[in-house]
């Protein structure tokens, strides 16, 4: 992230440090949310853990269930699920940071981060798209 900011030149650095809404900070937010809420289970590099926790790096599930992912993160998921041909059956809790569920903006940044990291590539999501995908998602409480 720092490298990216430096690439913009001195002015860019100042902008990155001082503007919380700056675009590169959004990537930064995705990484931060991941480290805080997900890495303990899915691993620092999205590698997963044996057949207990599915990987995110190179996971076919991400593309196959793209539209469902905002809701999956908001509500958590359990029961049998197949990722890259391996059957998992554990519990993932609803994503919460600082004891709050994630806003559509944060979900967008987080998903853009996991979908474009560790060798993953996907079209960037917009907040509007994520908001739309959340409309059918039962709320788990604020």
């Amino acid at each position, binding site marked *: 992230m720092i490298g990216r900011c430096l690439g913009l030149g001195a002015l860019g650095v100042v902008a990155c440090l001082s503007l919380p809404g700056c675009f590169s900070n959004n990537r930064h937010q995705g990484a931060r949310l991941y480290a805080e809420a997900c890495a*303990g*289970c899915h*691993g620092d590099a999205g590698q997963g*853990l*044996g*057949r*207990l*926790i599915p990987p995110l790096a190179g996971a076919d599930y991400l593309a196959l269930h793209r539209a469902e992912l905002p809701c999956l993160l908001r509500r958590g998921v359990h029961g049998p699920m197949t990722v890259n041909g391996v059957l998992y059956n*554990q*519990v*993932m*809790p609803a994503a919460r940071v600082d004891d709050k569920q994630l806003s559509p903006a944060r979900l967008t940044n987080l998903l853009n981060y996991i979908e474009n990291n560790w060798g993953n590539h996907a079209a960037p999501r917009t907040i509007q798209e994520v908001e739309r995908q959340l409309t059918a998602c039962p709320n788990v409480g604020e």
Partner: protein
Amino acid sequence: MSIRFWLAPALAAALLTACSGPSADQAARLPILGERDVRPNPNGGPADTIFATAPAFKAVDQAGKPVTNQTLAGRAYITDFFFATCPGICPKMNGALLSVFKPYATDPRVAFVSFTIDPAHDSLAVLDDYAQRLGVTNAARWHFVTTGHSATARDTVYGLAKGFFTAAQPDKEAPGGFAHNGTFALVDDQGHIRGLYDSLDANEVARLQKELPVLLAEIAERHPQATAAQ
């Protein structure tokens, strides 16, 4: 919190040990942790120091085999406390222990013991499934154990956790209904606890990886024949 408090001196002791000798491979000895008892010698000679040992336990592993202090006597072993449906720190903790385990997966000098703190849910079948999913196929190398199904099994394992310097208790607020921290304990061939490591801190896990061979070398000195036979 008292656990953290306790870890600090343990850490300091370990650091001191690591720094005391210029040739680390020679004189380095891990400290013996826990309260020690000094008994005056009735014959007037130097007092005896009785070092604390790990608590006594009787458990059953994922293969249905009993695991006790006697099962593990003569070897080093590493303990942690977890439960199979733990949505909190367990994946990270057991992921870290897996990285310590891998190079020793077929090494009989050291065993791994993970106690479930949710014995009501974690039957032998659940423990076996958990072990398989983690990639542990030989129950004799890494025991996933339960203190049983009796009404007191839970209290038993909470008491054990305390004895191994970690904390475990039911807590409605905690993820999955149990509060616990992820301390690994390293126990020697004589049952003394020789190291405590915070599994959530990569530096601490690296310290365990460095200190385990130090302990194995010490044990080998005590049992020269056993080593020669290997």
